[in-house]
């Protein structure tokens, strides 16, 4: 028994200890990989806690109903959430082998099934088979970005008239708040194109290596979209998101992407128009 177990037991009121014991056993057993009736230790424990059914089911068989449901429910959920990764690892069967390991290593920690795959990109990166495959890592990150963008908080629509009415000298100190759904992904492959092709049911091939800067976002009509953007625009968005004022962010972005600072000046107006139309800008704040 580990130190953590001892502490948890101390925190449990005496009258609830029986309930805790039952719930711990059932929770562990239904998340297990072993068929409960075939595992002597689990079957024996089930016999001691559960009554046989009126229809002739043994206690381990009754508990097994819940184990089957646990795996059906959670694996099906992840299938839906990671379509690109499923294709990259070789299809449904291979993906289920992967997610079975994932659910053992990272059991569901929240009531929110939408968050079931939150640790899958990290798990993939550590996995001995897939961690060394940059395409699998990209696919996992992209699919998860879609999940996060899906139900990120809404914002009131941004009033674009502010862009035209603000005096030019006020802009360098302006801070730009981006929409909460925006996910900025530096990728090694254009996996966003792969995901789109899969969605359309098109024939696809393994993407070639190509540095790609992608934004995953929810547009004003609530559709989930991706857009490939220039490295300079990507750097600028990253810097703005950290709360850096626009003037400083432009200099930093130009430095980070080894671009000519004048290039930002030339393209900034167009970018702002596009970012506003796509709903990426939530608010512009000026120094008081």
């Amino acid at each position: 028994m580990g130190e953590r177990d001892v502490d948890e037991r101390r925190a449990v009121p005496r009258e609830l200890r029986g309930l805790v014991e039952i719930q711990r056993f059932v929770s562990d057993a239904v998340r297990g990989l072993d068929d409960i009736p075939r595992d002597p230790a689990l079957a024996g424990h089930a016999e001691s806690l559960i009554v046989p059914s009126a229809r002739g089911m043994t206690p381990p068989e009754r508990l097994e109903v819940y184990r089957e449901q646990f795996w059906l429910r959670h694996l099906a959920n992840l299938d839906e959430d990671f379509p690109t990764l499923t294709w990259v690892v070789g299809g449904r069967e291979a993906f289920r082998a992967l997610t079975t390991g994932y659910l053992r290593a990272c059991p569901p920690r929240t009531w929110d099934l939408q968050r079931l795959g939150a640790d899958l990109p990290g798990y993939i990166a550590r996995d001995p088979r897939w961690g060394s495959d940059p395409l699998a890592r990209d696919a996992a990150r992209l699919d998860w970005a879609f999940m996060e963008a899906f139900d990120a908080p809404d914002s009131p629509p941004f009033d674009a008239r502010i862009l035209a009415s603000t005096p030019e000298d006020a802009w360098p100190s302006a801070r730009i708040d981006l929409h909460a759904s925006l996910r900025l992904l530096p990728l090694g492959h254009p996996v966003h194109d792969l995901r789109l092709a899969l969605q359309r049911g098109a024939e696809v091939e393994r993407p070639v290596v190509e540095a790609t800067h992608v934004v995953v976002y929810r547009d004003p009509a609530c559709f989930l979209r991706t857009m490939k953007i220039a490295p300079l625009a990507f750097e600028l968005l990253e810097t703005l998101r950290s709360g850096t004022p626009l003037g400083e962010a432009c200099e930093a972005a130009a430095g980070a992407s080894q671009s000519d600072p004048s290039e930002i000046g030339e393209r900034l107006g167009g970018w702002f128009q596009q970012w506003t139309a796509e709903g990426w800008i939530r608010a512009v704040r000026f120094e008081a």
Partner: protein
Amino acid sequence: MGFRERWSIPDLGVGVGFRKPHVVQVLRERPAMDWFEIISENYFAEGGIQRRNLEELSHAYRVVPHGVSLSIGGAEPLDAQYLGHLKSLVRRLDAPWCTDHLCWTGIGHVDVHDLLPLPFTRQTLDHVVERVKRVQGELEVPFALENASSYMEFRESTIPEHEFLAELAERADCGILLDVNNVFVSAYNHGFDARAYIDALPADRVIQMHLAGHTDRGAYLLDTHSDHVKAEVWELYRRALSRCGATSTIVEWDESIPAWDVLAAEASQARAVRDAVLSTVPREQPWASAT
């Protein structure tokens, strides 16, 4: 004064669960339907299409949230963040009540996402009563617990499920969501009398009913919500209505979800059954004089 009267529980008629395959059609065509039930947790997020759809739905229909993850029988403290989300949802919908299941869903910071059965003991009863009181107090609307389908029973249990649920409702002063299909499924799996179960519940506390289909797995019935309501379940529904009077009812269909027309027809059948039973029940609510 009884529970229903005290809380002025309305009779919403017969509705269905609001599910993904029907979202576009329902929001675009606004088909005739008395009311909708939603899965609470699907609408906790602060943004996105689900929130927007719910807003539209609740402008056109009465909507009641039905949760699957409160874990009222869990051995660990209630999740305050979860309760906060639920309260906010109830407010947004101006929901007349809110429901979840008599079950537990996880322990040790792991959520199994299933409606797991409890050992029906005095200790468990005391524990759940206190938690229900807290939930109902925080939500500030009537809270009702549904009898969940189950596939196993614990040796430790000393109280029959229907007695546990009845005493829980009385002591915690909460409502009951009577899932008629679940009574049938559990009665088959555990070998108890489904009719006696329904007869033993305090009729005045039954504020909602559920109907659904199930799957026969031979040695047991599985509550799949994947088919039409079975004949035996319709029969139990008639019995429950005779005891409880006009009670808001939802038809649930969650797997192999059919076209909207098929689901709506199932709700129409429930409405017809309900009307037929209620036409034979005295005008005053039968539970009004029940003790």
